Each structure stands twice: as C-alpha cells, then as structure tokens.
C-alpha cells in the first residue's frame, strides 16, 4: 500500500463507524425514524444543489442559450439581430482561416501532450519513491509554474525569448548557436508557445499522475522486479497500463485546455506571426473583437463539438484496452 495521507484516512473511520452502526441495528431502531430519515434523504439533494443550480442557471446556462441563439444571427452588438440560419456555421466550415486555427491547435497539441506526458510520467514515477531525497523540494518546485499568474509569466516569456535581447538567445549564443526568432518566425512561434504551456502545466499533471501511482500496489513492482524487469520496461509494461485511466484523465483535461488556449497567444504573440499561433480559442476571440458576435458564437459551438468528439475518442480508446 503506497497510498499515503488522504487515501488511508477514511479506512479506520470506516471500520469504527460500521461497527457502531451494526450495534444500533442490533438494538432494533424505530422504523418511523428511519422513514422520516428516508424522506429527508430524498429531499436533501435538491436543497444541496439549489444554490449551485441558481448560479449555474444564471451565469452559465442562460448565457449558453443566449450564445446558441446568437450563433444563428448576424448580431454585431448593436441594432437588431437578423436570423441567418446556418450561415455562420457554413461560413466557418468553408473558411480556411477556421481550419488553420484548428490545425494550429492540433499542432500545438502534438507538440505539447506527448512531451508533457513523458516528462510528467518520468517525474511522477521518480517522485513516487518515498525514499527519494529532496522529494518535497522537487514537488514544490515543479508546481511553482502552475501557481504563477499567466499574465506575468507570459510577459516574462516575451522578454526572455526576444530575438535580440532575450536571455535564451543569450545563453545559446554562449555555445555558438545563432540567434533564433523564437516569437517572430512562424516555424518557432508554436514551439515557443508550446514550451510556455508545458512549463506552466506540467507540474499539475505530475500531481495527477502521482495520485494515480499511489493507488498502484507496490507488490506489483516487487513481483516484476524479482522477474528481472528493467526499469524502463517496468514503467512501460506495468506502470503505464495500470495508470491508463489517470493518463486519459490528464489527456482529456489537457486537450480541453489546448483547444481553448487563448490567454497565452493573446499576451505573447497576438496570434502571429502570420497567424501561426492563432489557436482555435484565439480565432474565436478575433470574431468577438470585430463585433462579429454571431460567428463567434457559432465558432464556439463548433469547438465544443470538436472537443467532445476528441474526448469521446479518448474514452473509446481507453475502453478498447480495458
């Protein structure tokens, strides 16, 4: 049992309380009390979700319906809205700009997810070892980027990756690498943005994977270790399969984040150069700044569908291996 802290906490409580409840039943409780309790139990959830539902209806569902309706109009923020049917959707689907924004997000996904998973998995496996020295130092350090404000760090990125005066080119210059236009060439802008994303979120993924690792029984490894399985093989043939569900959770979470990515290109590249960092999320924002609210709304629903399909595909993939 490698599970520490939170996972173990309920267990002793559970046994003691179960013991007590059995005692109660043995005494023979009044059935009326139980019926009243059952009624309470039926009503309680409605009360519990009511505040959430109120906020949710007012500030999520209502705007969602508004947006849905907007997506069939050509409303520009003032004046009357004209119903245009599926025009906005058809316009987007026939527009190379829309597809290239999806393409940009897909490339970012490819740059980010595999690299991040490998790094996070290795880090998590190493950190899972309770005897690792400096374990908590590493854990804290890895999560530091995750808690830093994005606006601040994105600005730092702009300064650090400046072609002529940035620290990165300065460092590379020391070993003779010529200056790279990290943010000014369409070849490098995406990798630079991807690096920002990986830097910012990998710590969180490490934690998620760690939580998965903690529920894996250490005996499994011991058995494998005695069989002489190497570390890498052990990781690939034991840890990864056992961790499938957690990995998928992380992948779905990150897929949502990558396809909605907006603040990073907004602060760092404004979607450029030449639209190479115009992500799906940023493209959507472009319609809004042009007051083309109907198209923006349609764009967001197309994105939802895409993300949903992707998530479903991942879940399928997971189930196929189950």
């Amino acid at each position, binding site marked *: *049992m490698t*599970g520490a802290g939170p*996972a*173990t906490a*309920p*267990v002793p409580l559970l046994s003691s309380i179960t013991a007590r409840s059995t005692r109660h039943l043995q005494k023979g409780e009044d059935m009326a009390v139980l019926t009243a309790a059952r009624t309470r139990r039926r009503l309680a959830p409605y009360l519990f979700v009511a505040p959430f539902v109120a906020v949710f209806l007012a500030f999520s569902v*209502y705007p*969602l*319906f*508004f947006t*849905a*309706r*907007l997506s*069939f*109009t050509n*409303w520009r*923020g*003032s*004046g*009357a*809205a004209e119903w245009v049917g599926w025009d906005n959707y058809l*316009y987007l689907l026939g*527009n190379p*700009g829309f597809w290239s924004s999806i393409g940009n997000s897909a490339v970012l996904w490819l740059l980010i997810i595999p690299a991040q998973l490998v790094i996070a998995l290795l880090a998590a496996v190493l950190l899972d070892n309770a005897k690792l020295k400096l374990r908590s130092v590493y854990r804290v350090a890895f999560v530091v980027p995750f808690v830093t404000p994005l606006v601040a760090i994105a600005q730092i990125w702009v300064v650090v990756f*400046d*072609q*002529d*005066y940035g620290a990165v080119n300065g460092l590379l210059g020391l070993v003779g690498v010529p200056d790279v236009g990290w943010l*000014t060439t369409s070849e490098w802008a995406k990798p630079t943005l991807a690096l920002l994303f990986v830097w910012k979120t990998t710590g969180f993924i490490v934690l998620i994977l760690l939580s998965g690792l903690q*529920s*894996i*029984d250490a005996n499994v490894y011991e058995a494998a270790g005695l069989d002489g399985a190497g570390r890498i093989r052990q990781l690939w043939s034991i840890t990864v399969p056992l961790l499938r*569900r957690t990995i998928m959770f992380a992948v779905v979470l990150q897929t949502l984040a990558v396809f909605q990515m907006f603040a990073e290109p907004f602060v760092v590249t404004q*979607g*450029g*150069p*030449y*639209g190479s960092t115009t992500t799906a999320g940023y493209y959507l924002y*472009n319609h809004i*700044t*042009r*007051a*083309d609210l109907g*198209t923006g709304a349609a764009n967001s*629903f197309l994105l*939802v*569908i895409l993300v*949903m399909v992707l998530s*479903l595909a991942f*879940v399928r993939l997971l*189930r196929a291996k*189950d």
Partner: protein
Amino acid sequence: MHQLTPTRATRRRIARRRGLTVIGGAAILALGLTACGPDITAGSGDGDASAGRLQAPDGDSPSGEITIWDRSGDLYEVFDAAIEDFNEVYPDITVNHEAVDIDAKLQNTLITGTDVPDGVFLDDAKVAGLSDYMWDLSDVLDPYVDDIAQQKIDVNSIDGGIYGVPYDSNPGLLYYNATALEAQGIDATTIETYDDLLAAAREYQEAVPSAKPIHLEQSAFLGQLQLEMYASQLGTSLADADGELRLDSPEYEQILGFLDTVQKDGLGTRAEYLTPTDIAELESGNQVFYPWAIWFSFAPQQLLPETAGDWRAMPLPAWEDGGARSGAMGGSSFSIPRDAENADLAWLFYEFLMFDEAGYTAVWGPNDVYPNGLNTSIPSYEPAADPAAPLFEPVDALGGQDLWSVATEASTEIPAAAPTPSWWAGAVDYLGNDVQRMLDGELSPAEVLEKSSADIQANLIDRQ
C-alpha cells in the same frame, strides 16, 4: 484503498457511458431550444438620423460633470494639464479625467451602456466601427468644418454624419540621418521622388556596405498603417467612400512594387518600429531613411542618444514628379457616446481644446510635460496649424530644425480621403500579413493584391 477499486471502476464506467449520452443530449437541447433564449436587441440607437445629432448646450454658464477617457501616457498628462485652462472659461464644468485602456474597454462599455464616458479619445481607424454608439457631431462642428483638414473630416464621416471631433493631423514625413548621409556626400534634400530615394539609398550603400538604408516595417499592423500612408499620398485607401474595396489598383501596385524593390535589392532594414533591433540599426548609421508619420520625432528625442541631433525631417518623396509630398498615417479624434450623460458639455470641452486658441496652445504649446511643446503631431484645425505661427519649438534632436513648419506644410499636401472602414484593423490578418509575406519573398506584389482583396472581401466586407 485498492480493494474497493474493481466495483468502483465498473460503476464509474457505466456512469460515464450514461454521462456522455447526457452530454450529447444537453448539447442538442442547447442548440435546439434556442427559441426560448433571450431577446436579442440592443438598448441604444433608435436609427433616426436627426435624433442622433448633438446640439450645443443652451445658456451662459453651463454646469455639470463630465468623464473623459484618454489613453495613459504622455497625452493623458498633456490633456490633464489643459483642463485647468478649460476651467478658466467654464468654471462650472467638472472634468473627471481617466486614463483608460480604451481598446480593451470601450466596446464593452458601450454595449452595456453603464458608466459610459462623456467623451473618449479614439484612433481614427476605430471611429467607423463604433459610430452606431456615437453622436453625429455635424451640427456642432458646422462652424469649424471648413477650417479642418479635409482628410480628417473624411475619415470621421459615415453616411453624411461626422462621428469624431478631429484631433491631430499626422502627416507622413521622411526622417533621415543628415550627418551620416552628408558624410558620404549625399544631400537628402534633393530627393523629390521615390526613385530619387532608391538612388540615394543605393549610393549610400555603396559607400557603407553594411547599410540597409530604408526602414521596412515588420509589424503587420504598422506595416499596413504605413502602406495606407503611401496610399493616402496617391489619394486612395483600402475602401472608397461607399465602403467598396479598392485595393487591387495601379496605385497599390506601385507602392508594393517599391517596397518589393527595396527588399529585393537589399536596401531595407526589416524591423519592428523602434524595437531594440530597429534602434540599434538607427544608431549604427545602417538605417538612415525612415518614411513615417510625424510621431517618429519621439525617437531621436528619447530613444536615439547616439544619433540625436543628426536627424532631420522633410516631406515624403512624391510617387511621380509633382505628386503630393505627404500622406496621413494614423491620427486620432474625440468621440462622444450617445449614452453619455452630459454629451453637450463634453462637446464644449473638445471645442475648447481644439478650436479655442487657449485650448490648442495648451495642448501643443510648451507645457509641464513637454517644455518645448508636443511635437509628435500637429493640429488638424487649420487656423491652429499656421506654418508661420508655431505652437511647438524647434527640436534639438533634429538639429534645431523647425519641425512645425515642415509638418504643417506637408499636411496641406495630404489629398482628400475616404472614411476608414470599420474592418480596417481586421484587414491586418490578411493585407498586413500578406505584405510581410511579400517582404519574406513568398508573394509577389500582384499576388498580395489579389489574395488580400479576395480574403478581405470574403471575411470582412461580406460579413458586415
């Protein structure tokens, strides 16, 4: 707790399958039940043109409070200082002056109609896009309109209404490093056409092999703004008075051909306006010609310590002999939102600043912020822009040159214009980027015109 896992996992799997069905259902519901969504109507704007025309307030001593938005930075400080002078004339009008990130906030504020300012500083390029929310100022501007630079009236006019009080005129000038050029025996003042400019650049490069004498803008946005300066010289712009696209024209072809030549012949420094790279090339004498709006004057004064004093300004070269020697690049105006509480008082404020001698002297003349006066633009009100009566003083960083007379004379050369279309900034994604691709050598001038025209038409104009 792995002992609980199998049952939990199974349960979760079933729940998940059902959950996903529900997601699909909810999405369909959201899309299908649109009829019960909210009513999409806007609050303001009744569409009646005459009702939208602002009138000056009655009475002798108007009183009240106005909120004025300006961008943060030097201009805010300048206008802030001018409020005192305004209050000497209108003691009962209180001005709340706020420094605001206008680009980020104005559109949303106008949509919500809450805490709307009484007057707002706007790029000329933004006026058309927001005109639905603004007062038509043609009645109050009537006494002044004949004395305002025609180009500024044109860019603020939409369907016969005028939606901004013209603020500054930003004539394009040719800034050049006189000292560096003279050292090679080149007299820039003899340059009269862009062909002359190319010849001078070649001559300079022969003498200074490392030189890339002419600035080529690398920011897509500013590159497009500069392109419009060149176009303005030729009396054209992206859209005509009816909003029709007129990009695919001999004028634009000529301009792009010039830029393409500068790039292909290795005569251009490609950099973003006043970024560290750009500054380094200016300071080293590699970049000696900077065709830009008057506001480049800020650079020699503050960013170019090495070459300050070496720079001079002259009218732009003409596209052909006898052609106009300047074009407009950028510029701003003041707009008054219809939802403003004291729109009429805001008009008094802008009337004072722009058309009253005490007002425009406070803005452009020597003040606490600029001891020698504000020399990054000139007034668009012609009585204020008198070449013989400078408001700001000669500029030391330009070797003591009288920038005022250069700029005011250039300003009179600017041909008439058409309103800036509301989609102008959006066009940067197409035209601005395509021009950069041309400078990368990926597109020919003709391809830029063809591709950008098609894209702008399909994605911006047809989507209005």
